[in-house]
C-alpha cells in the first residue's frame, strides 16, 4: 500500500546531492514503495533543504531490517563516543 505515513525531523548538517554539498534542514522518514530498490516497501530517508527546492535532496531506500540495524548503529555510535564530543543528545 501507499502508506501515507511520514515523519519529519528538523536536522542540522550537510548532505551531498547531484549539485554537491548543501546544508540540510529537514529529514523525512517513511515506509513506502521505493522508487529504485527491488522491493514492495522500503524504509526511506530523505535529507532535504526545502528552501533550496525539491531537488535539494539526498535519498536512500533501505530494507527494513537494514534500516533498523542502521538506526541502532547510529545510537550506539553516539552512546559510545568519547566524553565531550557529543553535545545536545
Amino acid at each position: 500500500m501507499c502508506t501515507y505515513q511520514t515523519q519529519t525531523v528538523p536536522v542540522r548538517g550537510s548532505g551531498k546531492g547531484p549539485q554537491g554539498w548543501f546544508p540540510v534542514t529537514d529529514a523525512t522518514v517513511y515506509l513506502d514503495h521505493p522508487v529504485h530498490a527491488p522491493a514492495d516497501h522500503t524504509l526511506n530517508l530523505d535529507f532535504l533543504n526545502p528552501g533550496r527546492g525539491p531537488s535539494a535532496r539526498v535519498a536512500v531506500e533501505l530494507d527494513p531490517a537494514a534500516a533498523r540495524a542502521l538506526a541502532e548503529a547510529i545510537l550506539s555510535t553516539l552512546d559510545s563516543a568519547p566524553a565531550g564530543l557529543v553535545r545536545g543528545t
Partner: protein
Amino acid sequence: MGDAMRAETIRFEGHDGDELEGYLAQPLDGGPRGGVVVIHHMPGYDEATKEITRRFAAHGYLALCPNLYSREGFEVSPDDAAAAARAKGGIPDDQLVGDVAGAAVHLRSLPGSNGRVGTIGYCSGGRQSFLAACSLPLQAAVDCYGAFVVGSPPEGLAMRVGPLVHLAPQLACPLLGLFGAEDQYPSPGQTAELERALAAAGKEYEFHTCEGAGHGFFATDRPSYRPEAATEGWARIFDFYARHLAG
C-alpha cells in the same frame, strides 16, 4: 486499426487554472476514441505509470497521466517532486479532483475523442479514481486496490485523506474494482463494505478479488507482481472500457 502511436509530455490546465505537466499517449489513426485518465500512485509520475499510459494507447484509447506533483516544478525529477509533495502532506482531495477534471477536458478536446472519459488508478490512485468518479461527469472508473476508500489511515498520520465510502451515492459512472484477497489495505472486508454501499445506492459496479494476490499485483517491477492476477485484471479492464468508453 494501425498500431502507430504518439507519446509525449504536454502541458494542460488543472485545478484552479494551474498549468500541469502530463504524459499523453494516443493512437495516430482515426477515431473516435474514448479517453483514459491514468492516476499515478503516491511515489509519483514514474516510468511504470507512463508505460501503463502507453498501454492504453496501444489498445486504442487516448490516455493522459497528469503529473499530480507538477506544482513542485517542471524541471524537478519525478522522485524528488514526490518526496517534496509527500513532506507537505500529499495531494488535497479537491486539488486531485480539479486536476483530473482538467485532464478529462483535455482528452475530450482532442480531435479523435468520442467525448467519453474514464479513470484508472493504482494504490493511492485507486482511491483517487473512486473520488474522481464520485465528483465528476465521467463514463467509467477503475479502482485497483485503492486503500482508505473504506477505513481511515492510522491515528497520528499527517496525510490529508479520509474514507470516501459516504460518497457512493454520488458515483457518476460504472465502477470496476480489482483487489487482492491477501491485501490488508484495502482488506477484503473493506471492499465488501464498499460493495454493500454501492449496492444500497443502486450503482453499477463489478468487483473482482484475486486469490493468491496481495497489494500491488499489477506492478511488474516489484515482488508483489502476480502474473495470473495481472493478466486477468488487464483483460477485465479492457473489457470494461470497451463496454463503457469505446466507439
